[in-house]
Every structure is written in structure tokens, then in C-alpha cells.
């Protein structure tokens, strides 16, 4: 911690130490002592992204870069700090059992709202907008991207323009994390419309956020302008521009040439890290991401029924060499599906070791005998399976070849069947048509460790389930624990349960965790206010704080 110039995170920590974090107004989270943002918005910042933001209705399905834009245009009731603390945004305080916002049984939620918030068109933001938003999400005619949690809401009551309460059908602790990702939309604009899926609003959104919609040149760039009426701190720049540069090499070149000020998603590729570090006038840093790379196994395939096989495969993957040789040592080895920075992370999981001998012994003991072709078999099942990933991802393709070699040494045949993204992530993935897949997944919901949709046995789409448990993992103990943790609000207890879930999953190995990604981010010297937040999907989550220090 640097006391001469404390970062926002340090400030937060200090306030936490003082036990005062809860009573401070949110805008004090930005320490005024931190250099000097301009008094009126000044200048512009160009953010380069390799995927094009195209979804601007924040309740519709979206990808990371859409998040980045939406977080500047809209606000949720609560926000999440880099430390994983809930911070009020449109709400005036975060409801807890202690402050009475949450009932003891977790069923009644009451939100007090700020009274000084205006939509970009000047209309006041009120509890009616919150009610409208929560109802729109579960409207069967609306293309909302997630109804988890929202579908439990009953009896929404607007107590006053600044207070709203509702009842939950059953207690659901992860809901606060879901609310963090639920941006409020204006009732006075969307309410009167018949079809909200194709509303003009979706291409010219009106929010409450630090930036207002400017203009968009499809296929090229998107311009947001400062909302000088913003209720929070900032914004400090006049214009925030997202520039779409699909090719990663070109994205990096334009970062070098200075055409873009911040290199955002997908950031700087690992092979350019060494060079990027040495660039003058640029700040380049490695930031952990919550994406965990793993080999997903289809647990219904006969090859993967025997736990010994899964453990043998895991032992025969030379994780460290993959990380060092292919990813330039940037990612950190993982044993859990949770990022190491997570509050719920279990640091005591068994450590993976690359051990061909152990793998061979495991398979020998389990009765898998090498056939004439050198491939082991047992009861008519050959230890041969395919592995897929999106074609064109060179690092993953090299990982596959590397795995293929070491698995060959233990009598397992792995074939490579790569597919283009649109095919890969279609039914092939969702309906579990693969043998095994290399994939990077964010398992958390915001900061919450609830993984019911990924691991519970009623979440398997291929078996009629409704989640995204595409590895078809089933464990009744995990089901029970996930259900339990979802219904209690005591964070310490939840942490214990989620640690146990991680332990069981690590033992069962339905997925072979490889590593937790780290991204190489970069921006021009002189831009202040940039702060990583592992609890959000994108680096530009707090663009309202950006400014030029010249």
C-alpha cells in the first residue's frame, strides 16, 4: 500500500479497516487526494476493441465489449468494487440484513434509491423505472438474456419514488451479484412501446450513466459524450470512443502508433508482451482475469466414466510447460474453476503435477491394457477421444498438439477436431456432442461463486435440463451444497460451502483446470483513473473516472 499516493483500492481498504465503509457515500470512494481530474470534462479517449459492441439495450444478450459500453451509459442499483464489495449506485444504500433492507429470511428486499438521478433526456429516475425493468426482464415477449433470480421476484411494490420492495419466491443469495449486472432502463421510453425487441431505444439508448449516447459508425466506431448531469463522480472526459479493430495484430499496431489510447478486449497478445513493456509513453501491465482455461470432458462418454482415466489424463498434461512456452508464463496454474482473487476461492486444493509414470500406473491399476496399436482399452472401450476448440486459436491449437504427445506416452489417443466459433459454440457445445473441449470460461456470476447453472445435474441441456452444464457432470453432493449455498446470506458459511464444492469438483475432475488467464493491458501514459476490476468482465467498467493528467 502506497501511503503517499493511495490508489482507490487502498482508500477502500483503509475505510474498510476503519469499519466505516458502509456509511460513506459512494462518491467518496474516489479519493479526492488522487491527482487532479479537471473540473469540466476535457478531451477524448479512444478505446480499441477487437469485437464490435452492437448491443445497447442492457437487458439483451451481450458480450464483454457490450458490457464496457453499457457500464458507461447505464447504472445498476449496486456496483461492485475491485475488492468485491457491493457499493450503492442508483440505490442510496446496499440492503443488508443488518440495515433492514433484507429480511432475516432473505425473502423481502427493500431498496432505497437516490433522489437526484436523471435520465439522459432529463426525466427523473424513480422506483417506477426499477419496477418496469425487473418486470421487463421476465416478460415472455422480451429477448432478455438472463432471468435467473429475476424470475423469483413476486409482488413488486413501489413504496415511494425513492423506495421499492419485493418478495422473493425463495431465498437466493447470488441475486445481489445479478443486480450488479442488471442495468436500469427508462419506463417513460420503453414502457409505451409494443415491441421492445426492436425499439429505436436499442440503437440510441437513454440511460443514467456518466456518458450519453453520441453516434455510431457501424463497423468502425462508437462515440459517447459526457453526461455533465451525472449524479456520481465524473465524467472527466468529453468523449469516450470505442474503435473496432478486429485483427489483434492491427489492434496492437494502432496501440503502438498511438491511434488508440487504451487497448481493451482482447488486449495485447502474450507474444507481444515483452515488446509492449518496453514501449515509451505507454503503460503496460499484466492483470489477472477471471477466465479459467480448462479441458472440459463430456462425462457421458464411456472413455471418461472411470475416475482413474480422468486423473491419468490430468497428470499427463504438462501444464507448466504450456503456460511457459505457449503463453509466455503470464497465466497462473489453476486447480479450481474460480479465480484466485475470488472471496470464495479454495487455496487448499491438491496441486497438479505432470507425472507420466503416475498416469501410467493409474491406468495399469485400473485395468486399462494397451492394445496392439498401443492404445489402452478395457471392456471394449478404447481410450481414444477427440478434442475440439475454435479453429484459428493458435495457442490452443499448440496446446492440443502438446497434449496429444504426452497423452500418447500413456497409451491414450487424442484426435484434434477443431471447428469455427459459430459451429463450435452452437449445438456441438450446448447439446454436449463433443468428447472434450479446450475452453476458457468465467464460472462466477459477477463476484458470486454460484455455479448451479454449470454444475448441477438438472442443468444439463442434453438431458432436458435448463442450464449450461454441457460437460454433463452429476454429483448429488454438489447439487445439495449448491442449493444450500444459494439460500443463505451468511458470507462465511457460503464460503465454506463453495470451498467444499471446489474440493469435490477437483476430486471428480469433470474438467481439467489448466490455468487462470492474465491479460496484458495497456494505455497511454497520462491517462488516469484506470483500475482493473476482476469482478467485471471488461476493463472499461469505470470509464467515468478516466481523465488526462497533462
Amino acid at each position, binding site marked *: 500500500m502506497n501511503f503517499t499516493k493511495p490508489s482507490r483500492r487502498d482508500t477502500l481498504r483503509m475505510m474498510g479497516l476503519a469499519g466505516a465503509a458502509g456509511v460513506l457515500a459512494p462518491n467518496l470512494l474516489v479519493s479526492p487526494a488522487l491527482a487532479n481530474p479537471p473540473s469540466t470534462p476535457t478531451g477524448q479517449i479512444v478505446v480499441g476493441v477487437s469485437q464490435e459492441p*452492437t448491443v445497447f439495450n442492457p437487458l439483451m444478450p451481450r458480450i464483454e465489449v457490450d458490457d464496457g459500453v453499457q457500464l458507461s451509459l447505464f447504472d445498476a442499483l449496486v456496483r461492485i468494487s475491485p475488492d468485491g464489495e457491493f457499493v450503492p449506485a442508483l440505490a442510496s444504500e446496499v440492503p443488508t440484513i443488518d440495515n433492514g433492507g433484507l429480511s432475516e429470511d432473505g425473502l423481502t428486499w427493500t431498496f432505497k434509491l437516490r433522489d437526484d438521478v436523471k435520465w439522459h433526456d432529463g426525466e427523473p429516475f424513480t422506483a417506477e423505472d426499477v419496477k418496469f425493468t425487473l418486470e421487463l426482464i421476465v416478460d415472455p415477449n422480451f*429477448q432478455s438474456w438472463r*432471468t435467473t433470480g429475476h424470475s423469483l421476484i413476486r409482488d413488486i411494490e413501489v413504496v415511494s419514488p425513492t423506495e421499492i420492495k419485493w418478495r422473493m419466491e425463495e431465498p437466493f443469495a447470488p441475486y445481489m451479484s445479478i443486480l450488479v449486472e442488471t442495468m436500469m432502463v427508462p419506463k417513460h421510453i420503453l414502457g409505451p412501446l409494443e415491441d421492445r425487441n426492436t425499439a429505436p431505444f436499442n440503437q440510441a439508448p437513454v440511460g443514467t450513466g456518466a456518458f450519453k449516447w453520441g453516434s455510431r459508425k457501424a463497423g468502425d466506431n462508437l462515440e459517447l459524450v459526457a453526461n455533465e448531469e451525472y449524479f456520481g463522480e465524473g465524467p472527466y472526459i468529453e468523449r469516450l470512443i470505442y474503435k473496432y479493430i478486429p485483427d489483434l495484430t492491427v489492434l496492437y*499496431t*494502432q496501440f503502438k502508433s498511438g*491511434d488508440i489510447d487504451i487497448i481493451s478486449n482482447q488486449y495485447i497478445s502474450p507474444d507481444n508482451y515483452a515488446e509492449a513493456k518496453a514501449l515509451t509513453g505507454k503503460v503496460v501491465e499484466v492483470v489477472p482475469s477471471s477466465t479459467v482455461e480448462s479441458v472440459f470432458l463430456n462425462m457421458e462418454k464411456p472413455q471418461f466414466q472411470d475416475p482413474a482415466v480422468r486423473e491419468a489424463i490430468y497428470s499427463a498434461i504438462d501444464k507448466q510447460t504450456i503456460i511457459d512456452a505457449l503463453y509466455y508464463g503470464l497465466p497462473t496454474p489453476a486447480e479450481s474453476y474460480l479465480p484466485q482473487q475470488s472471496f470464495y476461492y479454495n487455496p487448499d486444493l491438491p496441486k497438479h503435477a505432470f507425472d507420466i509414470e503416475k498416469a501410467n500406473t493409474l491406468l495399469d491399476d485400473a485395468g486399462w491394457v494397451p492394445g496392439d496399436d498401443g492404445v489402452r482399452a478395457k471392456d471394449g472401450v478404447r481410450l481414444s477421444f477427440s478434442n475440439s476448440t475454435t479453429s484459428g486459436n493458435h495457442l490452443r491449437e499448440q496446446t492440443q498438439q502438446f497434449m496429444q504427445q504426452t497423452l500418447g506416452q500413456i497409451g491414450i489417443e487424442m484426435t484434434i477436431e477443431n471447428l469455427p466459433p459459430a459451429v463450435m459454440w452452437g449445438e456441438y457445445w450446448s447439446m454436449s456432442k463433443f468428447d472434450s473441449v479446450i475452453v476458457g*470460461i468465467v464460472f462466477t456470476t459477477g463476484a458470486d461463486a454460484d455455479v448451479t*447453472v454449470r454444475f448441477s445435474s438438472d442443468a444439463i441441456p442434453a438431458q432436458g435440463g435448463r442450464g449450461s452444464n454441457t460437460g454433463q457432470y452429476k454429483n448429488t453432493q454438489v447439487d445439495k451444497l449448491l442449493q444450500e449455498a444459494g439460500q443463505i446470506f451468511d458470507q462465511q458459511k457460503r464460503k465454506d460451502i463453495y470451498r467444499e464444492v471446489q474440493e469435490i469438483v477437483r476430486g471428480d475432475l469433470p474438467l481439467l483446470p489448466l490455468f487462470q488467464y492474465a491479460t496484458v493491458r495497456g494505455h497511454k501514459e497520462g491517462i488516469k483513473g484506470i483500475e482493473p476490476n476482476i469482478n467485471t468482465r471488461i476493463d472499461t467498467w469505470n470509464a467515468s473516472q478516466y481523465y488526462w493528467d497533462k
Partner: protein
Amino acid sequence: MAGFLLRRLGQSIALLIIVSMIGFGILHLTPGGPLSQYALTPGMTQETMDRIAEQMGLNRPLPIQYLDWAWRLLQGDWGVSYRDQQPVLSVIGRHMFATFLLMASSTVIAIAVGTWIGIKGATHRYSLFDYTATVGAMVALSIPTFWFGLVGIYIFSLELGWLPAGNMYTIGDGSVLDYLHHLILPSLVLALVNIAIWSRYMRTATLDVINQDFVKTARAKGVSERRILMKHVVGNALLPMITLAGMQLPNLLSGALITETVFTWPGMGRLFLDSLGYNDYPVVMGLLMFSAILVLLGNLIADLVAAAIDPRIRLA
């Protein structure tokens, strides 16, 4: 003539329908769909994906989806892009402008420079200039465009800092001069290959003409070399080149994918790639229909013009 026209129109429409059916079928039968990009979104469930697919009408039988699409198209509704949520025609229109700008400027450069090199090469056959031009053309044709693009960016943007490293304009500027500044490098890179092609054709065409009798006659009459070149040779040599220039037109639709990618130029090539990668059915179908219509129309006009010019072509 009217009968011919009607018959050709009928054939064209039948062809269009067949093309659209095949295109629609292949596109929709490809595994995956426009929602697959959300498969890895945290918290995304199959239930949500199924619900949205139903709302978008993606789970209806294929023939129904086709008829729905075709019926709308007949009414002038090209649909709305899944990826962009904007009308297909406006999406295509915007990208077409970018491609047109790039294509037009590079074609002008290629024709001007290529013609000059070709004529000079032909009139000074086997000179140092001619050999240099020949070797240069071979090099330009053999080296891929992206390499030229990257080298150009490295030299002129990163090292010298004279030209921007890409993009169509400076965000926040967008004046005509700014557009021109951004056009220089990509259109030169794109023109390079065309200069090579163009100069070779031009050289051959000029050589064909230069030995013709009417040129000799002109020379015998004492017409100055310069006048012979300008008045008799170039005019005649350019004739076959017009066909060549016409062949550049379809490129407008496919765009110059590589150049557009290297220079982040928001043109048709990138639109096509983005839309395919996303399975943005309405846009891909729109592009397909658009190009099919253009090709058919082009052929039709060519036939009519040929018939009008040359009475030997019987239309009956």
C-alpha cells in the same frame, strides 16, 4: 427486342429464386447459429437461448422461414441484422461507401500509373525501364498484400509518422483532407497489385497496336512520335483495357478483405466476414442477393449493349 427482354428478365428472376433458396438452405443448415456467441456468457442457460431462438423465429421449419424471408423481401423489407439490429440495406450501404472510396482511389492510381508504365515499357522495349517494370510487376504480384500493408504501416506510420496506421478517418475530425490522408496508404497498397497487372496488359496492348499498319502510315506521313502515341496508339490500346476495368466492378462487393483488415477499413469484405462469423443470416442473405442481382443485371446490360452495337448478334 421486347420479347428478348422479357425472356431474359424471366430467366434472371428464376435464377435469383434458385440462388436464394440454395443460399438460404446452406446458411441455415450450417451447425451453430446467431446465438452461439452467447454460449459462453456467464450465467447463460440453455433455457434462455431456446427462448430467444423462439422469439427470433429461428426454431420454425426451414421452408416457413424461407417463405417468410422471401415474402418480406418482395415487399422491399430486407430484414434487420441480428448482429447490428439495423436494417440490412443500411448496413450494406454504409460499408459499401467505405469500400467504394478505397476501390475508386486505388483503381484511379492503378490505371494512371499502370497505363503510363505499360506505354513507356512498350515504346522503350528492352530498355532498363522495361526490365525494371517487368521485374517490379512480378515482385508486386508475388508478395501478399498484407505484407505490403504491414511494411507500409511500419515505415510510414510507426517509423516516419507521416501517415496514419489505418482507419478511414480520425475520430472527431472527418474532414475531406483527413479522409484523403487516411486513403493514401491503403489505396497505394491495394493499387500495387493492380498497377502490376494493368501495366503488363497495357504493355501488351500497346505493342499490338504499335506495329499496326495505320501507325506505320501515320509515321510515313511524318506525324510526330508524340502525336502518334497520343492520338493513334494509346486510344486503340486502351479499348481492351475498358473490359478489364469493368471486371473490377464485382470487387466492390467482395471488398478488399485483406487490405481492409490490415488498415481497419470498415468495408464490405469485413462486413461479409463479420456477418458470416456471427451467422447473421439477414445480412449474409442480403449480400448474396445483392451480388446476385448485380451480376445478373450486369450480364443483361452487357447483352443488350452488345446487341445494340453489333447487329450481327441476333436477338430473335
